[in-house]
């Protein structure tokens, strides 16, 4: 059951037909495809059956579930939120094609205003809001050409569900190899109930010629609140992967617990960029998304390299520590992050770098911006094991405060068990300078523009790690997110 995928020029008839299908065809059928609220082994069996999964995967899910029920939700993070009732969540609903809107006039005006500010093209606005048939057709046809091109060089890029059907041996080999189902409360839950996500495999010696973006994955929509992503880069390969989008994402599911696993073999490189803009909640912090994500890369091979770059401006609560396990000798791990908390947003984020191989190197650059009543915490672990001879880490955490009601906190953890290890940590906290603002304004730059200029300057080291287009969008996003936080 998928959205209509007409591929050629559309006559009015087709358009009508497509709309009709939305109106009648799906809805009644859909209702039977929603699991009852709550979580037990039967629900997991149902999910696995609906997705036509092999026995081993069901077994893995069940093991994860049996482990999860022995765990309690962690409370050590520097965020606070009301209790989550895990038995009140619907863990399976068949992918639901969103009701197509006739035109942009039907889209929430607040959302449209945001789109305009971000400079998103009309066609793109329509696609994001689910408007009109031709746009859907457009993106499908783009995605199809894109897929053909990738297939020609052996790159597999598909939904996780498709991968389970078409490449079970790869999924079985790598699923849970970086983040075992016992890893933590949210990863266990995800392992038990994940519904979909992305799968990406780069064969030996292939340099993926384009940025892989969830944007182009046909059924990117509605991957649900328990997303699962797996990326494997074989020897001597390279891939750059983009996740998310700068457009505001609203979701009725308040809690999101995704898992992302990356595996880089000998001399392979994975660059993973995220722009996250989930709904942050209103000025009082109500209704925002809880984003509890486990992301980790395994730099398994010699000379392998994994880079995480993230720009986080959304969510009511963000709780994530993208990390790299540096197992291969000479492997490199990088983490570049911009996290903005405004309104009542809270973020507890940072990175984990685990050095196992010899001469492994890691870099952490974290830029935290707090405005309004935002609370921003950096929490990082640098763990240099016995075997990691000559390992090096450089960490830099900078915090920028805007206004007097926000906060920034830093909790760096360092464990060094090899005497040849070198760890450097630099941290700074600054208030956005009155003097800097006055200087800009004296030159004629209006206050809000000045704030966004200063903040973007503060984040430049991270932005320059993003692919060009993404970087431009990220800058705009930051400016829009900061609106109204001065004065």
């Amino acid at each position, binding site marked *: 059951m998928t959205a209509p995928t007409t591929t050629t020029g559309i006559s009015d008839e087709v358009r009508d037909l497509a709309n009709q299908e939305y109106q009648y065809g799906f809805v009644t059928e859909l209702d039977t495809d929603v699991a009852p609220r709550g979580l037990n082994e039967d629900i997991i069996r149902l999910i696995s059956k609906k997705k036509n999964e092999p026995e081993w995967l069901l077994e893995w899910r069940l093991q994860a579930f049996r482990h999860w029920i022995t765990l309690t939700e962690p409370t050590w993070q520097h965020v606070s939120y009301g209790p989550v009732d895990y038995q009140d969540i619907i863990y399976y609903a068949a992918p639901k094609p969103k009701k197509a809107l006739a035109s942009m006039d039907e889209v929430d005006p607040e959302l449209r205003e945001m789109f305009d500010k971000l400079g998103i093209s009309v066609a793109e606005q329509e696609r994001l809001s689910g408007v009109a048939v031709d746009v859907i057709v457009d993106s499908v046809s783009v995605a199809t050409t894109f897929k053909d091109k990738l297939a020609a060089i052996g790159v597999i890029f598909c939904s996780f569900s498709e991968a389970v059907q078409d490449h079970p041996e790869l999924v079985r080999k790598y699923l849970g190899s970086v983040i075992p189902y016992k890893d933590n409360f949210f990863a266990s839950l995800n392992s038990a109930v994940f519904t979909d996500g992305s799968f990406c495999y780069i064969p030996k010696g292939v340099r993926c010629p384009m940025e892989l973006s969830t944007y182009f994955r046909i059924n990117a929509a509605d991957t649900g609140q328990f997303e699962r992503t797996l990326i494997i880069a074989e020897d001597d390969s390279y891939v750059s992967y983009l996740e998310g989008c700068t457009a505001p994402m609203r979701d009725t599911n308040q809690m999101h617990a995704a898992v992302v696993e990356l595996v880089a073999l000998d001399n392979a490189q994975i660059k993973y960029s995220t722009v996250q803009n989930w709904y942050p909640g209103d000025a009082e912090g109500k209704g925002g998304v809880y984003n509890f994500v486990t992301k980790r890369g395994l730099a398994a091979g010699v000379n392998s390299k994994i880079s995480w770059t993230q720009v986080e401006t959304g969510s009511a609560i963000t709780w994530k520590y993208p990390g790299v396990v540096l197992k291969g000798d000479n492997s490199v791990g990088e983490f570049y992050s911009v996290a903005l908390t405004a309104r009542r947003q809270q973020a507890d984020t940072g990175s984990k770098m685990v050095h196992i191989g010899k001469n492994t190197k890691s870099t952490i650059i974290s830029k935290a911006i707090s405005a309004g009543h935002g609370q921003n915490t950096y929490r990082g672990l640098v763990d240099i094991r016995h075997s990691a001879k000559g390992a090096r880490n450089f960490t830099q955490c900078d915090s920028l405060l805007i206004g007097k009601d926000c906060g920034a906190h830093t909790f760096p953890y360092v464990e060094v068990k090899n005497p040849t290890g070198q760890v450097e940590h630099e941290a700074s906290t600054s208030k956005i300078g009155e003097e800097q603002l*006055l200087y800009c*304004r*004296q*030159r*004629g*730059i209006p206050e809000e523009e000045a704030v966004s*200029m200063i903040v973007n300057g503060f984040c430049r*080291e991270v932005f320059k790690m993003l692919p060009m287009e993404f970087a431009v969008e990220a800058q705009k996003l930051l400016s829009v997110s900061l609106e109204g936080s001065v004065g």
Partner: protein
Amino acid sequence: MLKIENLHASIEDKEILRGVNLELKAGEVHAIMGPNGSGKSTLASVLIGREGYTVTGSVSFQGQDLLALSPEDRAAAGVFLAFQHPVEIPGVGNMYFMRTALNSLRRQRGQEELDPMDFLALAQERMKLVEMDQSFMSRSVNEGFSGGEKKRNEILQMAILEPTFAVLDETDSGLDIDALRVVANGVNALRSEGRAMLVITHHQRLLDYIVPDQVHVMVAGQIARSGGKDLAIELEENGYAGLGQQENADRMPVGSAR
């Protein structure tokens, strides 16, 4: 062009300006001298709209009530300050900053914005005035600049933004003689019929390079004396003693003011 009448300014109950009166006509360059703490920099701050002061009196600029405008609107009206201590803005390119500033001004004045290529051409031409090379433009605003480089960067901004009224707040302080000459040449090149300047300085030597139409001596928040450029020379010899009425006016020779 600019008329300041009975200007008072205080900060947390401490009165710093105590009734300043001053008038500048288009094309004129006035110098303000005076001992530390006499209120010279406060005057500059009040003119550009720095927050934190309680201000009374009036400042009329080309017929507009300057005190009613925000700092950015004053800039759009044509007011410029070469800061005494230009602040660093890490990560913001100097070129980008100046282009944004110029385009903001142009936008507020209803003029078309300059594209990066046109701006580059303009900047390159103006950089010659202050003998700056291209490498300054790709660095972050004032970051890691030496004292002299910062001051030259201020004059470069003045050359690019082309204000109608510019205040130079101790632009000479911390400059060696060569840098002073470069800065003064830049300033002199920008003197014009339609532009007025107020040069705040401790040192008579700057006025050898930038020859003012009038010199004012500020003591204890007031203009204690005004005169031609000979007044500066007289001050150099006799100090500020006897000029003011009260506390800040005690014997302080100009040359050792810093």
